[in-house]
């Protein structure tokens, strides 16, 4: 009996010793939609994230273990998956979240459980505003951030009277709202606004006819995904380009689906936090690597995943490996990435980044490409009621 016990103890000790000799390990819960309407976004973010880890985690000395879960773009399901990742799988950090609805649903859980969350897409303004949390760091964008600079830029270009159209849901209201606010402040006039029922509108004809009858100089819109493709195609088929040039939030002509719009998207001017044609060495390297591994050009979703991975690695490099220290370190990352110089605003935990104004034009072999018209300087979002303690300096 005694012998067995000694043997068992020795065995146990050996295992423990072997484990401590192994590198430390960070469990990453990758929480993205892999099915449902945003599956293509989830897949693109994951591709970017894995590429980012591959590029930046050499000689890190810490093993990164990815556990992926599917939110199905369903808030209740997203919350259940987040709980599973944290409580059952022991995730040290969560990465992902495409839909603002899912982010809203898991916010209190993440905040209460004190688990760091890197938001790799969802842009609702409140997440880094009144509902901000020291555990939630956003590496993607906020809805207002992408569109406010466009309002000022269009006013500077001499556009005075604009009609707006948008998908009628929280993100649509915030995107168009951000633009409207800045445009009016800069002296522009909104002559009318139309809101189309979100994911129920297949035919934009009635709304386009109304925009046309408004007599506005230009049209500013927010649509994404399938709606963006239908909208741009229908805008073009009505010959609107001749009477009312199309501006919008850059998701309208995202690299992810601009080729499904084809020539219809030619001449559309939009603003976004990333374009694949951004001219800097980090982006050149990223685009090449993404193309080599995925076989197509990256979109903003890909770069959001890539930069999320980089932020995580930078945080780990400061010596952080547990939830508390990772959350603290993530709030202080800054680097030169494909989008330009990125940093995190300590007041809101939202990313601070330049915004590109770009025109979609025909490129080689009939593919559409982006011509950057202006790179607008990075600025921090207003705090919007966000109150939280400053991070502890590393």
């Amino acid at each position: 009996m005694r012998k067995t016990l000694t043997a068992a103890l020795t065995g146990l000790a050996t295992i423990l010793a072997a484990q401590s000799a192994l590198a430390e390990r960070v469990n990453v819960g990758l929480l993205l939609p892999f099915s449902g309407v945003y599956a293509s976004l989830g897949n693109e973010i994951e591709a970017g994230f894995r590429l980012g880890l591959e590029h930046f985690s050499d000689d890190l000395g810490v093993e990164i273990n990815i556990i992926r879960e599917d939110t199905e773009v369903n808030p209740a399901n997203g919350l259940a998956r987040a709980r599973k990742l944290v409580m059952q799988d022991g995730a040290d950090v969560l990465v992902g979240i495409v839909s603002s609805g899912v982010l809203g649903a898991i916010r209190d859980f993440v905040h209460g459980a004190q688990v760091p969350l890197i938001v790799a897409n969802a842009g609702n303004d409140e997440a880094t505003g009144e509902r901000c949390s020291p555990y939630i760091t956003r590496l993607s964008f906020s809805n207002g951030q992408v569109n406010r600079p466009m309002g000022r830029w269009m006013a500077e270009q001499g556009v005075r009277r604009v009609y707006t159209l948008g998908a009628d849901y929280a993100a649509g209201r915030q995107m168009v709202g951000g633009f409207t606010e800045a445009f009016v402040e800069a002296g522009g006039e909104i002559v009318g606004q139309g809101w189309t029922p979100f994911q129920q509108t297949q035919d934009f004809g009635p709304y386009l006819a109304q925009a046309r009858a408004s007599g506005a100089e230009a049209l500013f819109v927010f649509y994404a995904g399938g709606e963006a493709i239908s909208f741009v195609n229908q805008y073009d088929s009505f010959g609107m380009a001749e009477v009312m040039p199309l501006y919008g939030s850059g998701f309208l002509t995202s690299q992810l689906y601009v080729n499904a719009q084809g020539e219809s998207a030619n001449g559309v001017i939009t603003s976004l936090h990333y374009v694949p044609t951004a001219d800097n060495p980090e982006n050149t390297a990223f685009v090449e690597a993404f193309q080599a591994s995925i076989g197509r050009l990256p979109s903003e979703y890909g770069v959001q995943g890539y930069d999320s991975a980089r932020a995580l690695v930078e945080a780990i490099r400061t010596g952080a490996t547990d939830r508390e220290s990772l959350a603290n370190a993530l709030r202080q990352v800054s680097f030169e990435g494909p989008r330009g110089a990125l940093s995190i605003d300590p007041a809101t935990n939202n990313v601070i980044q330049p915004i590109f104004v770009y025109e979609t034009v025909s490129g080689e072999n009939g593919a559409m490409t982006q011509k950057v018209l202006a790179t607008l300087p990075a600025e921090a979002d207003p705090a919007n009621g966000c109150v939280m303690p400053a991070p502890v300096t590393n």
Partner: protein
Amino acid sequence: MTPDLSFWTMQTLNALQLSMLLFLLSVGLTVIFGLMHFVNLAHGALYALGAYFAATLASHAGFWVALLLAPLGVAVVGMALYGGLIQRMRKSGPMAQVLVTFGLIFVLLDLTRIFWGDLALAITPPAILAGRVDILGVGYPAYRLFIIALGLGIFAALALILSRTQIGAMIRAGVDNDDMAACMGINVERLFFIVFCVGCGLAGLAGAVAAPLLSVTPGMGLEILIPTLIVIVIGGLGSLKGAIAGSLIYGFVQTFGAVLLPGVASILIYALLAAVLLLKPVGLFPAKG
């Protein structure tokens, strides 16, 4: 804002175009239901399949080939569904049928995702339909006029077949009383099979026609299902007249609602649906009065 005549002309054409697209979808569903008392919720998924077939065929063989072959392809899928599933479900109650065809939606949705991926596809309309046609001073997209013409053409053809041909008489007899029709020597089972395949083919045609107008996404079948069901509930189950009336009502209410009452546009059609269900639960033009 002063909308003039050309504005209203354009909106009327928009309403007609939406109506015709919905007509193509709802006529198959409603006749299948009228004849077989079978609710095929997967009808929307077959529409999506038609759009995907068309997208693939168009990139290899051009738009017109796609428009011809995609509905045939969907009809073949319909045949397989009928033989493998629908026929067995004929005797089970409506709840089981609804559940099975509802499940089928997700099976087909995931199959389209596996074969074609998550990224949206698009088709460019053929050059001859790419421009705009001048109607009462309005430059209206030729492709949308084509949809209106196609919808009216299919309506006329179906009306003719149903009222003037032998198979039309057989279908009408089957809808009216299938037991009696069988007693009179009509092969009702074969009739079911033909109607089911034609209905599926029409859903495929709607998908192929919609593809250049809308984007081709895995979720498009789910998005169109509810409007289609609203059309057949308003119009009345089982009748061609109901399908065209319901489609027109839906198209006009949706289009002019968006223009005149933008605040309540999204609920207007549901309010109308509720009103029809309260006042005339069988719909406006049911097959069996």
